[in-house]
């Protein structure tokens, strides 16, 4: 075996969050031991909460104050990081270690132009470029390196004037500005659509070669590391349980857990036992939308003046959802998917007709964290949903009614894979996947004939997504509930949706049988989505 030069060496690291009540809690990181070789791209994968992010924060020295490292050491280029004082560790960030995070939409200060924020990287490290002109030049050069053709314009833009992908590029530019030797990427693409993900990964790989950087790439998506990482480590419950070259991990997993992750990531219908209901297209649709046009309104005073800008986001969109059907709706970010479902749900003013043949429509949204009220228990959420459905029988006495509704709540929760023990928990005591289940249970208790799901998987790891997907198809089959599924994961659409709609810039550009659309795409936007998909999943 050849020896490698390790740029980072993590040696038997154990980390926990001790509190006054519990001075010796279960460690978050348990005897983590690995090295990052100079110049490589090392992937670190595992489900949410397994300790990936804590590992990266420990290397960067940005651990929360309540964390305590009980044993082990971290060496960066031979220097013992844990022995250094906080000030000099902070000074290493940006210069020796660069970082990119998950959520580009909130990672930039909304009050400062991108140029100023990038300049801070240079001014924070005094020995760098001196004059403002030189700094500006360096920033523009880096912005061009990360793929901006209008770098000078970007300097004066505020974050809210950029798209998600553009913001992530600005953040990458900031992290790479001083050409650090190590770049830590913590799920840099998980909130981006497939097309943007592919371009960001290509950019990172390119930067890695150009600037001779080493990358630690953290992800919960096994398919994202394919074709990107040289080596992959698998983490579970604070332990590294498997590490190997990417091709070995992905094609011949030796570890049982890795194999399980891989299966889940593939979301294979046969292995998961997904079986959507058969659809009868001759029946009348549950939802008919005709000529929906919607956009963001002007302020009171701008309305009277002649409009210079067109604020319309949706242009004349019509669609139908049939009973029992799982209709897929795909498209890149900003294509108007979310605006469309908000219009369908009546949450946004729009012109056109929406006809729903049902007493209630359920909706589940992307982020299960902020959808539930943190002050209340799951029982409260379910009771409220039940009350809102108006399906409680007011003729029976109060006590009986209460017992009845409780029984109903428990049966629905059980159907969604939760149980009586979750009734009195608060949202913060549940995992992301469990919260998404609560959201579905809240829909189900209203017995809707249609559930609109807006990217329900995007914030979940592979295992939770697989379980959720199974739940959705089960509901579809057993309750004959129709779904309108918005997603940027074409793979899922291919597996469970008989029919698909592709949207681009506020219009439906293609519609039809999933196999037809995805094998013989007729429009350009479908092909570009498919290309990105192919590149990332290697299918």
């Amino acid at each position, binding site marked *: 075996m050849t020896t490698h030069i390790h740029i980072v060496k993590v040696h038997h690291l154990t980390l926990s969050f001790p509190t006054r009540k519990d001075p010796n809690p279960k460690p978050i990181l348990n005897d983590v031991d690995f090295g990052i070789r100079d110049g490589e791209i090392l992937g670190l994968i595992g489900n949410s909460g397994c300790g990936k992010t804590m590992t990266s924060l420990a290397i*960067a020295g*940005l651990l929360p104050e309540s964390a305590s490292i009980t044993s082990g050491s971290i060496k960066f280029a031979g220097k013992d990081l844990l022995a250094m004082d906080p*000030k000099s560790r*902070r*000074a*290493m*960030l*940006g*210069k020796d*270690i*660069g*970082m990119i*995070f998950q*959520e580009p939409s*909130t*990672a*930039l*200060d*909304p*009050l*400062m132009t991108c140029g100023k*924020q990038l300049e*801070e*990287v240079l001014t*924070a*490290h005094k020995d760098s470029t001196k004059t403002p002109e030189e700094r500006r030049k360096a920033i523009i050069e880096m912005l061009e390196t990360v793929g901006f053709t209008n770098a000078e314009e970007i300097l004066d833009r*505020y974050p*809210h*004037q950029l798209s998600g992908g553009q913001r992530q590029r600005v*953040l990458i530019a*900031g*992290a790479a500005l001083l050409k650090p030797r190590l770049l830590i990427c913590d799920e840099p693409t998980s909130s981006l659509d497939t097309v943007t993900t592919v371009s960001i990964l290509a950019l990172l790989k390119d930067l890695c070669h150009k600037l001779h950087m080493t990358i630690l790439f953290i992800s919960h998506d096994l398919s994202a590391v394919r074709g990107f990482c040289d080596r992959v480590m698998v983490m579970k419950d604070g332990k590294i349980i498997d590490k190997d070259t990417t091709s070995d991990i992905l094609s011949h997993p030796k570890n049982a857990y890795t194999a399980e992750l891989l299966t889940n990531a593939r979301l294979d219908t046969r292995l998961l036992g997904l079986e959507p209901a058969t659809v009868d297209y001759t029946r009348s649709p549950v939802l008919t939308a005709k000529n929906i046009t919607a956009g963001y309104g002007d*302020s*009171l*005073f*701008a309305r009277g*003046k002649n409009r210079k*800008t067109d604020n319309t986001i949706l242009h004349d969109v019509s669609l139908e959802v049939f009973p029992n059907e799982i209709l897929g709706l795909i498209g890149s970010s900003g294509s108007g998917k979310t605006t469309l479902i908000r219009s369908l749900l009546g949450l946004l003013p729009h012109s056109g007709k929406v006809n729903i043949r049902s007493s209630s429509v359920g909706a589940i949204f992307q982020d299960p964290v902020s959808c539930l009220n943190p002050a209340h228990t799951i029982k409260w959420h379910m009771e409220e949903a039940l009350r809102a459905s108006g399906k409680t029988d007011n003729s029976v006495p109060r006590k009986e009614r209460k017992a009845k509704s409780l029984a109903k709540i428990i049966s629905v929760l059980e159907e969604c894979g939760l149980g009586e023990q979750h009734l009195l928990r608060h949202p913060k005591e549940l995992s992301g996947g469990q919260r998404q289940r609560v959201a579905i249970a809240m829909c189900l208790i209203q017995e809707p004939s249609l559930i609109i799901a807006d990217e329900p998987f995007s914030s979940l790891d592979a295992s939770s997504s697989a379980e959720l997907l199974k739940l959705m198809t089960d509901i579809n089959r057993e309750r004959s509930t129709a779904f309108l599924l918005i997603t940027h994961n074409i793979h899922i659409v291919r597996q469970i949706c008989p029919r698909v709609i592709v949207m681009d810039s506020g219009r439906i550009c293609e519609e039809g049988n999933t196999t037809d659309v995805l094998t013989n795409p007729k429009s350009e936007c479908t092909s570009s989505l498919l290309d990105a998909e192919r590149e990332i999943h290697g299918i």
Partner: protein
Amino acid sequence: MQSKAGYLIGKLVELLLTLLVVSLLVFTAFSIIPGDAARVMLGPEASQAQVDLLRAELGLDKPLIVRYGSWLIGLLTFNPGTSYAYHMSVGELIAQRLPVTIGMSAIAMIMVIVISYPMAVLSARKPGRFGDQVCSVIGHILFAIPPYVASLLLILLAGSLFSLLTVGNYVSPSDDFIGYVGCLILPSFAIALPKIAMSFKFLRSSIIEQRTSDYVRTSKSHGLSDFKILIRHVLPNSNVSSITIISIILSDILGGSLIVEQVFNLPGLGRLLLSAISRRDFPLLSGIVFYLAFITVILYFLSDIAASLADPRIRLK
């Protein structure tokens, strides 16, 4: 994209409309209050003929819309009629009293900002630690003390223990500016106390919230020191939300000064207002109410402008 000028013009139109509605409300309110001003001025002994004569003299016999029109013009020229009780122009009366109220509010506001900001920053450095706990307890106590109680306590303290600051003697700013500030310090402090607590609590939680935000983490990963992050990112962002609170506090202070003036025996708008109420001096009363409302509306307008300057998301849609 909306232009800067467009935003400003929109806000200005909004401001003028608000003021028009305020003037209408004030006028209507004082026109429908039962009780005839002429009858009150002349007393119960006067004959109906005398009362009618006075009504004609005061213009009370004209139709409402005409009276509203002439009152509105009077407001614009800062001469909305003559006070029944003082037999002086309302504008002049208000102008005389305004320096006391405005000066007191300004000093109180400065106190609020100067004291609550550093307290909040220090407190938010280590939330939950001893210093933070002490500050929070003091905040709660201050918050619970109404301004008039604080005034009495301060008078007692200043008068009997220190005899430093003049209590009860008002000095006009044109005579002796330092004396003017000196005599307003104690009353201003009495008004400021609960507001300091309010502003402290709000700022503290807003700073703590900003400190855990994603862009702070980004700045840390860029290698910025904690102090630089506080000054350049955390404070400007918490300022955006505090601007609204500060403007609410400011209009609150204006209202709060009315009571404190009474306790400290200061010739401000508050005392003028009270005497106008007890004498049914409607021109004076409506004048004071309108101009107080006017100042409040202007303050909110300015805070909107300040918010748009501080936050590019409002400025550049």
